[in-house]
């Protein structure tokens, strides 16, 4: 890590706008007298490993990356913590949508049917909704056939492509149900990927939390505290940061919390995605 004065953050380059966002935030931090830099990763697995190894101080993590970081760190006797999250990361849900004219009325009706999901590593469009179906007695591969849309594997579902392809497959009648985050069900219905009123929400997960700013084991406390303070100082009234907040999809930063990840921890175990030590155990996952 260069420069002892800097706080170095990892972020995953799931979209070109990531550079605009973090370049902008970096400039803003430096204007506040806070030395900050960021490193881009092509996938969350490498980012998490390097965070836990102390190569970066903090990481802007997906919920799945948080689960793995926690497991990896704890297995090594280290600690990571969720310092901050976006207001839009709190209390999300995912849905299983079916065509309104399909006659499917309950989760049990999906038995023997084809369910489309997002990428293998998407918490919102694969792991969480499949966990919901398992809890209702539908085992993927046995009771339902899963048609997975692996777009942006390694990005933990940040790339919307898998969910949109799943929605298209549902609209085209190629699958019986499709899994997606609630926001995208609204988005796809508004943009016409799913014709308005043509789909029905058959099932909805409980509320869960999404990304968080994870503090690594080697992060210096004073810098982390200042970083937290600056994030919470970012005001939507400030026209210098408002465009960046809009791009990153938040109105304000909130304190981190971890009780919203319990469902995902269970879903990861259900799917055998990571083991308890944070090793990757999903056989068909190659970031």
């Amino acid at each position, binding site marked *: 890590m260069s420069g002892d004065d800097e706080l170095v953050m990892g972020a995953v380059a799931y979209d070109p706008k990531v550079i605009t966002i973090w370049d902008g935030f970096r400039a803003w931090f430096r204007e506040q007298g806070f030395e900050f830099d960021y490193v881009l990763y092509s996938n969350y697995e490498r980012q998490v490993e390097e965070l836990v190894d102390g190569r970066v101080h903090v990481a802007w993590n997906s919920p799945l990356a948080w689960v793995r970081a926690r497991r990896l760190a704890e297995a090594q006797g280290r600690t990571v913590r969720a310092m901050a999250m976006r*207001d839009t990361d709190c209390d999300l849900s995912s849905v299983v949508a079916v065509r309104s004219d399909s006659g499917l009325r309950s989760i049990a009706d999906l038995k023997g049917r084809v369910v489309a999901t997002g990428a293998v590593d998407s918490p919102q469009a694969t792991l969480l909704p499949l966990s919901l179906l398992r809890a209702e007695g539908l085992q993927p591969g046995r009771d339902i056939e899963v048609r997975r849309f692996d777009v942006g594997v390694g990005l933990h579902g940040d790339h919307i492509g898998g969910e949109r392809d799943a929605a298209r497959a549902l609209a085209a009648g190629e699958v019986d149900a499709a899994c997606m985050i609630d926001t995208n069900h609204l988005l796809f*219905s508004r943009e016409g990927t799913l014709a308005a009123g043509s789909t029905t929400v058959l099932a909805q997960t409980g509320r869960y939390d999404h990304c968080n700013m994870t503090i690594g084991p080697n992060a210096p406390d004073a810098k982390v505290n200042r970083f937290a303070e600056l994030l919470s100082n970012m005001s*939507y*009234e400030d*026209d210098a940061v*408002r*465009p960046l907040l809009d791009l990153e999809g938040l109105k304000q930063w909130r304190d981190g919390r971890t009780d919203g990840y319990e469902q995902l921890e269970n879903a990861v175990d259900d799917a055998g995605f990571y083991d308890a030590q944070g090793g990757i155990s999903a056989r068909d996952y190659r970031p």
Partner: protein
Amino acid sequence: MLATIDLEGLGLEEGAHLLIQRALDPLPVGAGVEVQGRHPALAVHVAAWARARGHGVDLDGVAPVVTKGTAHDARWRSAERAGGPGASGVVERAPARWGLAARGALVEAGGPPLNADLVEREVVWSDLAPKLYAQAAAGQWDPAKAIDWEDPFELEQDVEAAVVQVMTYLIENEQAALVVPARFVARLHPHFREVMQLLAIQVADEARHIEVFTRRGLLRTGELGTSGAGGRASLQTLVDEADFSLGSFLLSVLGEGSFLNLLSFLERHAPDPVTRRVAHLALQDEARHVAFGVGHLERSVKADPSLRGRLRLAMERRHTALSDTAGLNEEVFDSLVILAAGAWTPEAIATGWAKVQTLQDEMDEGRRRRLGRLGFPPGEAADLSALHTKNFM
């Protein structure tokens, strides 16, 4: 008491958010609206929509309750009005931060600053601009319909050649007259909306003039005449003038001012009806361009009398720059004589010659009159007029 809204069967994928937002608008931050409705995905979509907009949502009751967040007010807290919509709302100096916003709009802070350097009312504004723009918009004519291109006429071959030469000259002059305002309009803060519109329509005017002069030039022979290096050098000095006031002075007051006489000359003396008609139509437009230039500079000179010194220097500088060039293409001058003569008898040529002399006297007189309006005393106006380019424009 909690406000309530009933969306009936309308979903958020069909615009129901508009009704929720409208219900939230008058409420203080933190107040809630209970959203009732029959849409099957109502709760799912209300939660997703509210979250993305920074509103809170409570899904524990029978119907979702949206709590108004701070984001909307925060976005607009530092917004400001970009002056007023009418001409009286024009500010002294238009800030770059207003960008391309409409004059009078409520402008959100932030966004890219405008890259414009013509931002001062004193430099660019004329109170005539709104009226002239309205006249210009009403006075637009269609080259295909306003001119009877089939109007029959017969000209001797070399009289036709003289007309073609004059058209060729007019085209290159009008091309300069198009480029100059086009460059200024790109540098002008759109806060000065009417000036921007007027300059834009001036560009469009010149585009039509170029079209009709080209069409008349090619009408019979299908070929154009010559372009002299000296004439082009003279026009280049117009294009190179970067100062808005000086550029407007050289182009509109002096150049296009002289062109009023030239076009009027062609309207009266051209040997065929098509040439007379295109000159007539172009003359109307050019009169507007001159009126704006004079009006704008009259105002500027009143506000800053030292501008007169800079105007004089600009004329002298241009004269010096052109002292080594031939000025007007000799073929153009001769063509004007032939065109006004209309025949090849000594008597006709003498008449044509005299008419062109009169034309030059009229141009000089017009320039002196306009310089007088800008506050130059008669003697100085006469001296300056004599410095004007031999190329007329």
